[in-house]
């Protein structure tokens, strides 16, 4: 049983805020294959294409038949715990500050023995255990030994909480509460136990459906925020920047045009101004504050979420300028991830297919519901995932894009989605 996390006491403002020391982040290029899978929530190991032997640690040639044809394949993670240890000493500052720390040696049913961080609900050896891959605070994949069946509060495990960005007891900024997606995100965060949700609204005079339901939640505080206005962003950061643990940037402008269907660049500029420059303004103002608080107790600053689009991967001509703005935002989000990584702040990029809203009215189903995006974001924060493709369309595009980006480009050009 994991004891439920108690709401932490108010921080003593006199004490120095503890700074982040990342866990060891160095990995070889091959080992990064495990990170690539874990970034999307999967546990994969190399499997030999010729003799099917499962390999670990990651390597360049099959330890059984010497084949170089090793492929990353999903693993069930079933295994047996062979031994455990609780570290009371470590040579690394990250772990020194978090001792004692429990580890296990697990023999996977698939073959190899793996060293894992051990969830507190896993007992002593021998015991069945389920191994999964998670990103640690350095953003690199690590293996974790989970109990076969977890209890209600297993997410509150001290070790797991160090790996994830669970919204429970955290303070979150959602940059746009006016949209259906924004409102669904706010609802989901409150349900997940967020302490405070600051909800941005750019145009306070507009009355939009559903907004009142969100604003009357006790956890919610409305804040003026216009991402096109540097001063607005700066003022809000000055007010709450030092308290925000998670930023969710869902503000976007979406118009359905390509190049020829509309003259001039005004609309394209408006899309870029929110979708790209808005992210840039927000990151410049809120990024440093988040980085400075990434080791600040159990509710340390943890994550930054960008609502992108699956169109960021490949241009969808009917929504051509929107696709371009999201591609720009995606590229900037990669830069943000690189800059946030040394502080241990996770940047989560969400790539939905068409959302079931007014700007996708003419698109045939399936379209992803705002509530589904919201729950995907909360799940990603809890599971420590950094790339999220919610919905069937996003999953299918991703598969096609990975299979052959050029073929997908031709298909999209032909209006085939």
């Amino acid at each position, binding site marked *: 049983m994991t004891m439920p996390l108690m709401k932490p006491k108010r921080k003593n403002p006199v004490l120095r805020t503890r700074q982040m020391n990342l866990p060891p982040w160095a990995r070889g290029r091959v080992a990064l294959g495990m990170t690539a899978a874990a970034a999307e929530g999967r546990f994969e190991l190399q499997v030999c294409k010729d003799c099917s032997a499962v390999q670990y640690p990651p390597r360049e040639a099959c*330890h059984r038949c010497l084949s170089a044809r090793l492929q990353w394949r999903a693993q069930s993670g079933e295994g047996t715990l062979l031994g455990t*240890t609780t570290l009371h000493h470590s*040579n690394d500052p990250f*772990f020194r500050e978090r001792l004692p720390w429990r580890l296990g040696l697990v023999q996977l049913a698939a073959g190899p*023995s793996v*060293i894992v961080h051990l969830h507190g609900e896993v007992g002593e050896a021998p015991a069945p255990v389920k191994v999964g891959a998670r990103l640690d605070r*350095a953003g690199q994949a690590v293996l974790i030994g989970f109990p076969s069946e977890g209890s209600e509060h297993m997410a509150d495990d001290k070790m797991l909480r160090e790996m994830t960005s669970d919204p429970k007891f955290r303070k979150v900024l959602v940059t746009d509460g006016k949209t259906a997606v924004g409102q669904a995100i706010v609802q989901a965060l409150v349900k997940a136990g967020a302490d405070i949700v600051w909800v941005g609204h750019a145009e306070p005079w507009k009355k939009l459906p559903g907004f009142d339901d969100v604003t009357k939640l006790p956890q919610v505080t409305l804040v003026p925020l216009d991402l096109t206005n540097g001063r607005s962003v700066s003022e809000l950061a000055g007010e709450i920047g030092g308290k925000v643990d998670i930023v969710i940037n869902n503000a976007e402008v979406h118009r359905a045009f390509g190049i020829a269907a509309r003259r001039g660049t005004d609309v394209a500029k408006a899309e870029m101004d929110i979708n790209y420059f808005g992210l840039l303004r927000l990151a410049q103002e809120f990024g440093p504050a988040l980085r400075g608080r990434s080791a600040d107790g159990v509710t340390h600053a943890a994550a930054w979420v960008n609502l992108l689009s699956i169109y960021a991967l490949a241009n969808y001509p009917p929504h051509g300028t929107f696709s371009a703005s999201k591609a720009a935002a995606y590229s900037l989000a990669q830069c943000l991830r690189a800059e946030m990584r040394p502080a241990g702040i996770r940047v989560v990029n969400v790539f939905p297919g068409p959302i079931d809203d007014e700007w996708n009215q003419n698109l045939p189903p399936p379209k992803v519901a705002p509530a589904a995006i919201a729950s995907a974001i909360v799940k990603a924060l809890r599971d420590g995932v950094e790339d999220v493709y919610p919905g069937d369309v996003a999953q299918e595009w991703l598969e096609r894009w990975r299979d052959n980006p050029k073929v997908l480009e031709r298909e999209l050009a032909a209006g085939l989605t």
Partner: protein
Amino acid sequence: MTNRRSSYEGVAVAVPVTVPYVRYSTRNAHWFIGQALQALVKASGLAKEQIDGLTVSSFSLSPDTAVGVTQHLGLSPRWLDHIPTGGASGVMSLRRAARAVQAGDAEVVACVAADTNHVDSFRLTLGSFSHFARDASYPYGSGGPNSIFAFITANYMRTFGATREDFGRIAVDQRSNAMKNPNALFKRPLTLDEYMAARPISDPIHLFDCVMPCAGAEAFLVMREERARELGLPHALVRGAIERHNAYADDPVMVRGGWRMDRDELYAQACATPADIQFVQTYDDYPVIVMLQFEDLGFCDKGGGSAFVRAHTMTHDGSFPNNTSGGQLSVGQAGAAGGFLGMTEAIRQLTGQAGERAVRDAKLGLVTGFGMVTYDRCLCTGAVILGSSS
């Protein structure tokens, strides 16, 4: 059927030297290697130029290897080897040097192991020790080998019913030996109660199960027996030697080492049985490994290690002398020199240079090596049987 290997007959080991250990040093590994070579020259009466073969073992020499050492120290050997295999480097250096002098590739080979220890060098060594360690063990708590051997110890205790007291006996007896070794970094005796009360490091590993990283060097000379006699050097003879790497790779957790695979050949080479061995210098990175070696080298059955240590006193004057120098657990682990400690001690025991910690009438001793925890176990195992020349 593989060809029978040639014997090691006629190979002598001599001139065991130790560059005194210090906890931390601002010197480089080259300094310790230089000191060791100077001690070899002085103690042997040979001119530096007469040493025409060299092996070097070190973790802190990078980016240099044995090659850079020749220029640094003004040597011009006609045979050279770099053997950076840590705890196995003593046995492996001896085996290679023995073949070189038998074949005439070199006349006198200096085998040197040396490491420095700067204040932060242990942490840096651990993080970049191997590709597998970097990718699959160091990110898990960064306890270094402590956590790996904690798994091995915990599994051994659970499987065979060994207790912490059993491991304590090994550590306590070694400390008793160390009291008679002026070079040991640990100067105070250790009681079983103190061992049991030590703070946990990575349970079931506690403080006195761990070696203390330090700086220092160990070295010896290898030559043909006639040459040692000509030079009037007290020497021991190589009676047999084995090594094995990545043995029992399919065992999910280490319960036996490569010694088990080759021990029959080792004893056959030496025309001896375990009962003939008068002392052992086991590689003692952790007491559980000492116990595994007692089993794998045939002194008791697998799983019988606990009963064996309860039945024996492992001091130099006891019924089963083990690590008569005090071993790394009590002398300190000067990096790769830890892999030489048993070798220099065994040569001293067999050449009457062990002072007040001498094993009485020592004629036959066993030295082991165990090195390189690249991921979840040590990969290199080796053992040598040395006999006195009389």
